[in-house]
């Protein structure tokens, strides 16, 4: 009986404080302790048992001391679990289940259950520090801000504003993330980004280009209504554990659960059908499903006729994918493909779920579109129980995608065109010319595709490519100079690929600033000696604000405890820096500032004033606080409050929540669902690409949302259309003044939206979802082999793109990499994924004793066949070498969880580099309890052709015993 797996690497207790004891590492088989008659106590290594010390038991509840309660939202993933914190005298003493929350109903995975450890904060960065000749020295906040500011101003003077790369965070609140984006804009660069780039950027772009918005269409809760659930590249049981509560209940109600993944995940263990496919072959797999769907006439013909554009072109591509070819390319047996197609067809509504297993590929923007096409063919979009349930990663990555710092668009998907800047300048009450003057307007640069542009109107360097912004020959860059300064506020560098080159980039930088609760892998991985600053930044439990869960619901967080040690919240640090850099007044023109702290509520109100595109306008702080208070009144299946003070609202006012807060729009629980009036959360597909294309209409045919006065498709609304329809006089005189010459996205009075919705219409028009995206490199998705493919024989038939000269300001390679057969030297597929206990770069959780002891060591899953071929046995150290030469030393876990030919590692580890523990390089007392190789030290080149998403899920490696 095999009863253990990843936890057989139980690290011993004393080691956590001292790296010297690493040599005494011992392992125990925990499963047998718990299961059998248990006669193994004597086998326990003695170092495993230790006296409980007083320090370990601190912050516990005392009798006869008043206990206060604060409600916040878990900061670990996008499910948005409520947390009830117990406090005594300002100390976080306990945690209770938030059973009133309709999202988690009190449930937590280990990360949520460990939230209180943030109140202990033993391994936190405690005060500002800098490197002086390789040693960490303590600074005051004033010194730190002054020194960083002086260096930034010097670099700006020498190399222009684009020499800075500022990475914001999807761990920040909406307000913090919004301010990060605004900060970069007023500094004068688009070189600003956040985790969303490497999380779901390909989803956001691909899905938005299909039907309007690039977000989860339904919700975790709504999955309870699904009859079939198809998981691709999603390991919900480990990445979104509490979502499984809804998923398993759907399954208990008879829903068919299908998991397609290269790895037999813990989610797959609960599935009715599991199929193992080769990494990076999702497009052929979906075409394989569509082949059966079209062949058997299972498609929803009426739905397609009325709501979809260019499905016929998909049919033509499908013809290229008969079952044999699908099996040849994907490795999934053709019977299985048929079974899955049939299950999806016979069990409707069905939903499709995908995560980073899909998005982190070099053709992922096309993969995500094809997933949408599958759902459109089945008529599964815009219905309860259906949808594209895209599980986002971080707790506020949806919010940071929407309002936050992005290099390719201003807040809320307004883009970077002149009109977009002018819109936000009006919201900010700033002179457009002044903002323009902050940018490098000396000349235009190559914007790719034969165009040139000013950097203000050109996407900046994305976080996936910042290392190339540093290392690339500056003659090849579409900006004045290389990146010389990098600020990371709430981002782990070990989540980006090509660690070996990252080390070089770090060493070349003139200035590195890390603003984070922990020093992070970034502080230790390079051999920098000077000009490196650490700014202690508090977690979201030490401040307050809103966060957007994956289902687009905004939730209000209360502050639990005061910032620990000398740490400060994101928005305070940004304000202090802006003050030093000379644009603090502009940054907070409409925002009240007290003691260098911009008022969070005012920040949200400013978002409300500008975010018309996606309806972030109705979620005022007051409404969000009311929802938090009355969360019990929302139904966990529909998320609707049937009674009480929030009657009619959907929990968290899932965006779009149209119009001003006073309009009391209830939020949109399911996107594109025409069965409800728009005023009650109904919607149709967005008409975002004109009226017709190539002679075919892009407007919906005879479909409209309930109660609509227009009984057919219609374009998006502007002042002129309102006048033509005779609706103009429904506006108040004040609204008319503001709305004149504007459209539904730029009318700051909200009048256009209000009137349009009053007439039952959707402000963004009523269009068709499109299968053909003519602005994309592949207008119809086609399969392209990974750049580092184990099937070089397929490259000829399914080649990648030609190299590109200027793409997000950088040369980007495709064919020049793929044209070489790397599989002879590196025969194994290398892919990565999540562990329940950790998240992202893992710094927070690996610094948490309760979680660290559950996952004490970095490892790689290797199939027994590959292990035997390489002469590797279970538990031994191996060298895993990526196809570009990066090497990591990890434990081998020999398991059938991965198929032959595939090696899998978790991506949360850091603190080691190519075999060396970097313990000594952390500031004293801040090294995480568990450290290990960052898997991305061994990952390789490869970037999505639309968004610059990094390729982490399909590359190559080889393994040898260490």
């Amino acid at each position, binding site marked *: 009986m095999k009863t253990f797996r990843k936890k057989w690497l139980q690290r011993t207790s004393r080691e956590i404080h001292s790296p010297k004891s690493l040599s005494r590492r011992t392992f125990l088989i925990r499963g047998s302790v718990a299961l059998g008659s248990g006669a193994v106590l004597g086998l326990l290594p003695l170092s495993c048992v230790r006296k409980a010390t007083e320090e370990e038991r601190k912050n516990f509840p005392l009798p006869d001391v008043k206990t206060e309660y604060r409600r916040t939202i878990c900061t670990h993933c996008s499910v948005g679990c409520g947390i009830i914190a117990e406090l005594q005298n300002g100390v976080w003493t306990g945690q209770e289940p938030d059973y009133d929350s309709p999202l988690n109903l009190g449930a937590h995975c280990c990360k949520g259950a460990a939230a209180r450890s943030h109140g202990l904060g033993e391994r936190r960065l405690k005060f500002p520090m800098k490197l002086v000749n390789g040693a960490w020295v303590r600074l005051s906040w004033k010194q730190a801000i002054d020194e960083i500011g002086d260096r930034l101003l010097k670099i700006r003077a020498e190399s222009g504003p684009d020499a800075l790369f500022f990475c914001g965070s999807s761990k920040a609140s909406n307000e913090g993330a919004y301010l990060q984006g605004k900060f970069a804009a007023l500094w004068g660069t688009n070189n600003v980004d956040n985790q969303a780039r490497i999380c779901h950027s390909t989803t956001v772009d691909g899905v938005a280009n299909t039907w309007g918005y690039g977000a989860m269409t339904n919700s975790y809760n709504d999955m309870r209504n699904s009859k079939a659930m198809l998981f691709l590249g999603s390991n919900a049981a480990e990445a979104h554990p509490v979502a499984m509560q809804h998923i398993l209940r759907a399954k208990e109600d008879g829903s068919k659960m299908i998991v397609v993944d290269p790895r*037999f995940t*813990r989610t797959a263990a609960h599935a009715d059908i599991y199929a193992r496919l080769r990494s990076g072959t999702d497009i052929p797999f979906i075409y394989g499903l569509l082949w059966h769907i079209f062949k058997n006439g299972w498609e929803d013909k009426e739905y397609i006729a009325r709501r979809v554009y260019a499905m016929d072109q998909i049919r033509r591509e499908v013809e290229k994918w008969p079952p044999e070819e699908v099996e040849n390319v994907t490795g999934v047996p053709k019977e299985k493909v048929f079974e899955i197609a049939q299950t999806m067809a016979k069990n409707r509504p069905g939903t499709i779920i995908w995560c980073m297993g899909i998005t982190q590929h070099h053709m992922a923007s096309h993969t995500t579109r094809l997933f949408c096409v599958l759902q459109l063919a089945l008529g599964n979009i815009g219905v309860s129980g259906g949808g594209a349930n895209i599980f986002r990663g971080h707790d506020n990555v949806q919010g940071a995608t929407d309002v936050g710092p992005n290099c390719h668009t201003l807040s809320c998907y307004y883009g970077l065109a002149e009109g977009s800047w002018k819109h936000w300048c009006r919201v900010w009450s700033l002179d457009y010319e002044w903002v323009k003057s902050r940018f490098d307007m000396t000349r235009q640069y190559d914007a790719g595709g034969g165009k040139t542009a000013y950097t203000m109107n050109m996407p900046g360097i994305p976080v996936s490519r910042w290392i190339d912004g540093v290392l690339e020959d500056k003659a090849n860059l579409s900006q004045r100079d290389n990146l010389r300064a990098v600020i990371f506020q709430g981002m782990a560098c070990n989540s980006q690929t090509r660690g070996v080159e990252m080390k070089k980039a770090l060493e070349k930088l003139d200035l590195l600033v890390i603003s984070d609760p922990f020093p992070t892998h970034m502080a230790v991985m390079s051999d920098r000696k000077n000009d490196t600053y650490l700014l202690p930044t508090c977690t979201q439990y030490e401040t307050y604000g809103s966060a957007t869960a994956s289902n687009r619901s905004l939730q209000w967080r209360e502050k639990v405890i005061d910032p620990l040690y000398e740490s400060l919240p994101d928005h305070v640090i940004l304000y202090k820096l802006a003050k030093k850099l000379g644009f603090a007044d502009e940054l907070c023109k409409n925002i009240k500032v007290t003691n260098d702290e911009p008022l969070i509520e005012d920040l949200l109100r400013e978002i409300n004033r500008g975010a018309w595109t996606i309806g972030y306008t109705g979620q005022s702080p007051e409404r969000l606080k009311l929802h938090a208070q009355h969360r019990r009144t929302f139904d966990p299946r529909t998320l609707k409050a049937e009674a009480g003070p929030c009657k009619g609202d959907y929990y968290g006012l899932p965006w779009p929540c149209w119009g001003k807060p006073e309009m009391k729009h209830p939020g949109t629980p399911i996107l594109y669902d025409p069965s409800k009036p728009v005023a009650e959360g109904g919607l149709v597909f967005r008409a975002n690409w004109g009226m017709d294309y190539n002679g075919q209409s892009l407007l919906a045919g005879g479909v409209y949302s309930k109660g609509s006065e227009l009984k057919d498709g219609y374009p998006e609304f502007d002042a002129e259309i309102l006048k033509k329809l005779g609706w103009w006089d429904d506006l108040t005189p004040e609204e008319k003044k503001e709305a004149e010459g504007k459209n539904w996205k730029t009318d700051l009075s909200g009048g256009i939206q209000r009137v349009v919705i009053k007439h039952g219409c959707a402000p963004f028009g009523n269009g068709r979802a499109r299968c053909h995206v003519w602005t994309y490199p592949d207008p119809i998705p086609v399969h392209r082999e990974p750049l580092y493919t184990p099937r070089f024989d397929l490259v000829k038939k399914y080649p990648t793109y030609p190299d590109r000269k200027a793409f997000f300001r950088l040369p980007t390679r495709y064919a020049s990499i793929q044209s070489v057969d790397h599989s002879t030297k590196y025969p194994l597929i290398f892919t990565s994924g999540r562990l329940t206990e950790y998240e992202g770069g893992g710094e927070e959780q690996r610094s948490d004793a309760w979680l660290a002891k559950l996952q004490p060591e970095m490892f790689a899953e290797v199939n027994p066949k590959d292990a035997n071929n390489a002469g590797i046995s279970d538990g031994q150290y191996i060298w895993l070498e990526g196809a570009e030469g990066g090497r990591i030393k990890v434990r081998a876990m020999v398991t059938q969880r991965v198929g032959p030919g595939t090696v899998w590692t978790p991506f949360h580890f850091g603190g080691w580099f190519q075999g060396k523990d970097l313990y000594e390089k952390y500031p004293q007392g801040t090294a995480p309890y568990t450290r290990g190789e960052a898997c991305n030290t061994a990952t390789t080149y490869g970037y999505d052709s639309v968004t610059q998403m990094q390729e982490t899920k399909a590359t190559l490696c080889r393994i040898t015993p260490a």
Partner: protein
Amino acid sequence: MARMKFLCDAERCIECNGCVTACNNEHDVPWGINRRHVVTLNDGVSGEKSISVACMHCTDAPCAAVCPVDCFYTTPDGIVLHDKDLCIGCGYCFYACPFGAPQFPEGNAFAERGKMDKCTFCAGGPLPDNSVEEYRMYGRNRIAEGKLPLCAEMCATKALLGGDGNIVSEIYIQRITKRGGKSQAWGWETAYHFKPAKEKNP
């Protein structure tokens, strides 16, 4: 009279370790001790199942039967507790326990272990309810506060149920009926002499 029981629904357990961490949080048990574990069978292959295991608070607890100093006692709710002032750390209970529940935090050499530690069903110990002394020795006493074990209350999928045995059975039977599977109330036969209902004769 209510009788407290634990039940882990293996069809729902996703091995997220939420229960283990909730326990660590609530009682701040030291590194090296886990009052609760999640055990996975058939790891990584078809048929993989996980269950969360801790002291089951057995009827006729075998640990109590073998204890040479008689440190165990059962509360009227059926919760099996022990008195650490009496415990001599002999480890007999560990050998007797079918669930591997007893844990030994201290000690320098074999046969010289410290006081045994185990799941208390969040009911503390013999010391005054929710006193500092009780917290230090046994952890928090939620039962005295009218609450149930935090591991069950925080379970990610409501796989782990902890409370009045009748309600626990009721919920579990409802789930079984819905799923159409057979009852696999793991550990119940051993802990509570519970026999799953035999199929009725036609």
